[in-house]
């Protein structure tokens, strides 16, 4: 047995024990040290770098570590075996930021506005903002020697007086508190109840003098990022908001790798724990602590996520999803409760889920479709969710069609050497001077925050600017030379956006040809999916009236740049609308409003699913779209014009 010490840049350490020959990345995973390894430890991505501080490691040398870096102690964790006691530094580089949790500051009203706006829109469409949770005040006669009815019957009888319901259920969690609360409140209490036409469920009981807030939790589980809001179920007010990297990320960057990992013995439990115990529960605690709210007072939860994520969340075998004929265990289910999956809120809280449409179009899309309101308009709209899986919905109030394409994690900063989520330190916008090739950029966070990496919107800007200034060619290869353009000894080019001394991390913030290539494939997947879906309906892009873009790729996308790189069709920019994380907004609406929940089920069952892999021309479209802006330049007349102007 050897001792392995993981040191962090903030000075804390984690110790673990390992046998000779154990893989360092596995040891880290076992010790809950999050080292980002999007490629699942195959030595392909070069993200799991650690720095050897003491002791020794048996590490294979790889292309990802230069000679200087190797002599400075940098190693890939996945390529390192334990041979002795060892101490390694887990660096604070972009990828490590990825998993850092963030409780949003709600003082900025922009965040709130998205939810408010969505609420008003569904209300205007005739959907009532009501749900079945309620607080009722109950006054009972105090028991005496003449009135010896037990506490639970007393409460039941009193409740029945308010609502004449046959069945009233009092769960163990309430029964346990019942005698104390009744007596301390002198039999004047408030109950949190859920009523349906024929029964009532008592979630909780409080002293009648207390102010009771019914908490609700809406969660968007993304493959890369998880975000959540804690709300007041009565008013719909957002009480707290939080986001965090999905703890499953260390088991692979995309859904397929996760499913494969879940198939291994004990894998389902591991992945479920990673998303619930390591990601969602800490977020719940963090949010509750920030507003001094009790977790027990969260009585309902709504999850919107892609099909794989909701299967893994529920601990259900997701294997059939990735194999023909791609059948999920459920599209919708209402049989999940917090205590079933270990979500640390009220154990009886019901977990509702945004319904899936297919194995690759999940609840995140149905929730997003609800928010986009395309179902309520006669004009043709296109809804695009930019995530690890890119999903599209096209249609209007008469029909809707959906499809999914595998875009990879690039929009959320994955598969990009300096990629990161849109949190502090992320470059979210950038311009480049054509003459000097010098960049100007904007960083997420307080003024003065140093750049650490690039988030999705930043990558779009950088690639668009590199292309429009002629620094890269349409294939994404560097064709101009300068101080900021470098080539490694394999000839791979890169552009430095922030040199080490201006950056807030241990290395330069740069974008390489491999990054650009990954991103071109991601944008190509999106654009070709748009074209293929429209072609299948005999439509073309000029017939789109509005485009709603969702996804946590930054505070906003520069739509002009997204068109320049050929990610979105070349239509007037005013047709594009960024609607933020619509999956979370949709989950929020479903949570707050039972009619909205029902509407979402209805939308899901009315949507046609187009499986792109069965469309013979998709591959052709895809290869054509893997070029900036497109092999068929006539599809992007405004980009050509703009280039000539520059």
């Amino acid at each position, binding site marked *: 047995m050897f001792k392995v010490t993981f040191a962090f840049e903030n000075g804390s350490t984690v110790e673990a024990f390992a046998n000779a020959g154990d893989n360092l990345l596995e040891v880290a995973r076992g010790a809950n040290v999050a080292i980002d390894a999007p490629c699942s430890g195959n030595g392909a991505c070069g993200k799991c770098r650690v720095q050897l501080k003491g002791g020794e490691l048996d590490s294979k040398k790889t292309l990802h570590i230069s000679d200087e870096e190797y002599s400075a102690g940098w190693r890939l964790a996945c390529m390192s075996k334990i041979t002795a006691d060892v101490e390694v530094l887990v660096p604070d580089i972009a990828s490590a930021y990825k998993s850092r949790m963030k409780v949003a500051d709600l003082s900025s009203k922009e965040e709130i506005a998205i939810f408010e706006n969505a609420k008003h829109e569904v209300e205007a469409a005739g959907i009532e903002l009501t749900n079945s949770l309620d607080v009722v005040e109950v006054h009972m006669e105090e028991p005496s020697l003449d009135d010896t009815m037990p506490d639970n019957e007393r409460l039941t009888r009193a409740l029945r007086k308010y609502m004449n319901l046959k069945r009233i259920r009092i769960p163990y969690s309430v029964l346990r508190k019942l005698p104390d609360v009744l007596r301390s409140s002198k039999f004047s209490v408030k109950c949190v109840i859920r009523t349906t036409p024929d029964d009532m469920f008592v979630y909780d009981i409080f002293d009648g003098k207390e102010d009771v807030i019914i908490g609700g939790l809406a969660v968007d589980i993304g493959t890369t990022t998880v975000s959540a809001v804690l709300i007041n179920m009565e008013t719909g007010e957002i009480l707290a908001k939080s986001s965090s990297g999905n703890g499953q990320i260390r088991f692979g960057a995309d859904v397929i790798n996760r499913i494969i990992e879940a198939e291994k013995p004990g894998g389902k439990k591991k992945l479920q724990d990673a998303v619930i115990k390591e990601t969602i529960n800490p977020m719940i605690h963090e949010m509750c602590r920030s507003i001094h709210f009790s977790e027990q007072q969260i009585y309902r939860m709504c999850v919107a996520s892609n099909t794989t994520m909701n299967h893994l969340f529920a601990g259900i075998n997701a294997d059939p999803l990735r194999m023909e004929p791609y059948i999920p265990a459920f599209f919708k289910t209402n049989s999940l409760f917090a205590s079933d999956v270990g979500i640390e809120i009220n154990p009886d809280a019901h977990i509702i889920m945004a319904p899936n449409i297919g194995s690759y179009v999940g609840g995140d899309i149905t929730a997003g479709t609800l928010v986009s309101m395309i179902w309520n308009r006669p004009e043709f709209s296109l809804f695009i969710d930019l995530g690890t899986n890119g999903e599209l919905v096209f249609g209007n109030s008469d029909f809707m069609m959906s499809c999914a394409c595998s875009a990879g994690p690039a929009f959320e900063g994955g598969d990009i050497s300096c990629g990161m989520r849109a949190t502090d330190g992320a470059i979210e916008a950038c311009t480049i001077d054509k003459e000097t090739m010098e960049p100007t950029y904007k960083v997420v966070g307080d003024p003065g925050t140093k750049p650490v990496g690039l988030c999705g919107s930043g990558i779009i800007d950088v690639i668009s600017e590199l292309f429009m200034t002629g620094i890269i*060619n*349409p*294939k994404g*290869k560097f*064709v101009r030379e300068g101080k900021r353009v470098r080539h490694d000894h394999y000839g791979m080019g890169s552009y430095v956006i922030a040199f080490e001394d201006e950056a807030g991390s241990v290395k330069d913030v740069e974008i390489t040809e491999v990054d650009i290539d990954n991103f071109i494939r991601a944008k190509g997947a999106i654009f070709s999916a748009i074209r293929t879906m429209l072609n299948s309906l005999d439509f073309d892009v000029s017939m789109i009236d509005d485009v709603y873009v969702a996804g946590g790729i930054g505070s906003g996308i520069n739509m002009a740049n997204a068109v320049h790189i050929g990610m979105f069709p070349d239509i007037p920019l005013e047709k594009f609308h960024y609607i933020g994380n619509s999956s979370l907004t949709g989950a929020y609406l479903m949570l707050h409003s039972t009619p909205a929940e029902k509407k979402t089920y209805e939308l899901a069952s009315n949507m046609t699913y187009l499986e792109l892999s069965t469309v013979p021309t998709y591959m052709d479209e895809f290869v054509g779209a*893997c070029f900036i802006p497109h*092999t068929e*330049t006539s599809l992007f007349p405004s980009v050509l014009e703009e280039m000539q102007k520059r």
Partner: protein
Amino acid sequence: MPFNQKPQKFNAKINDVTIGSGDKTVTFGGDCTFPFYSFDAESENSPKIGVEISDMGLEGVSEGIKAYYEGATTMGEIAQKAAAMEGADFVALILEGGDPNGVNKSIDELIEVVKEVAAAVDCPLVVEGCKNVEKDAELLPKVAEALQGRNALILSEKEENYKAIGAAAGLAYNQIVGAESAVDINLAKQLNVVTTQLGVDAKKIVMNIGSAAAGYGYEYVVSTMDRIKGAALGQNDNMLQMPIITPVSAETWNVKEATASEKDMPEWGPQDERGIDMEVETAAADLAAGSDAVILRHPESVKTISKLIKALA
């Protein structure tokens, strides 16, 4: 009702690209119809045939080919015999000995061969690299330099090395650039776009869109060529109007139908005939699908395809 012929007219044509210098030149392309649709419009230049010789001499070639070159001992003599072959329009020298995974001849050694061949024949020349992208990136610019004034076709640049080869052949030494892609209309067009963005004249590019021996995934080749011609003529796509050259022999002489000996496969018949059959079948299909030139090895194949072109064009 009498048959009323309606010619299919396109307002576009394939570029005509001429290789060779002096009075010995050949021109590829120039047509404004689908291949051999002479009923739609007169063909300007019928498809051309190149005879392939290798820097490895006669090593490994079939008996029939060996017999044709009997008596030729130097590369110069081999080239002369190739140029004299009945039906031949140009000579294609493939530098397969340069492959680092094979004989790995040095670049100087290969340039000597190129010079010897160039000195021996005055017909138009095509030089093919060793197919290794790194080696070709060094070798083919040297070839382009050595052949200055010959207006030769350099086969070929690929996406990975187009900058080195495209710039040397198309800009510095004024040769014709061969642009090779992997059987995909979009990839073919993308390479043409980036090559022209280097500054190479679109009219000095010949495409090799990739090939296969008939029966070896060949449907993709047909469909790609067909769609390239369709886009070039029907949509007037000037990034796909380059003529297409297809090196046939390098594919067909390496498949089992051509390499299995008669001893091993008596029921398949004589080996040489099988090789010719593969070459002729593939070349005929390439021409019918849209190739403006093919490269062959066996004198019998060259004769047969030449006859086919005369009969159809």
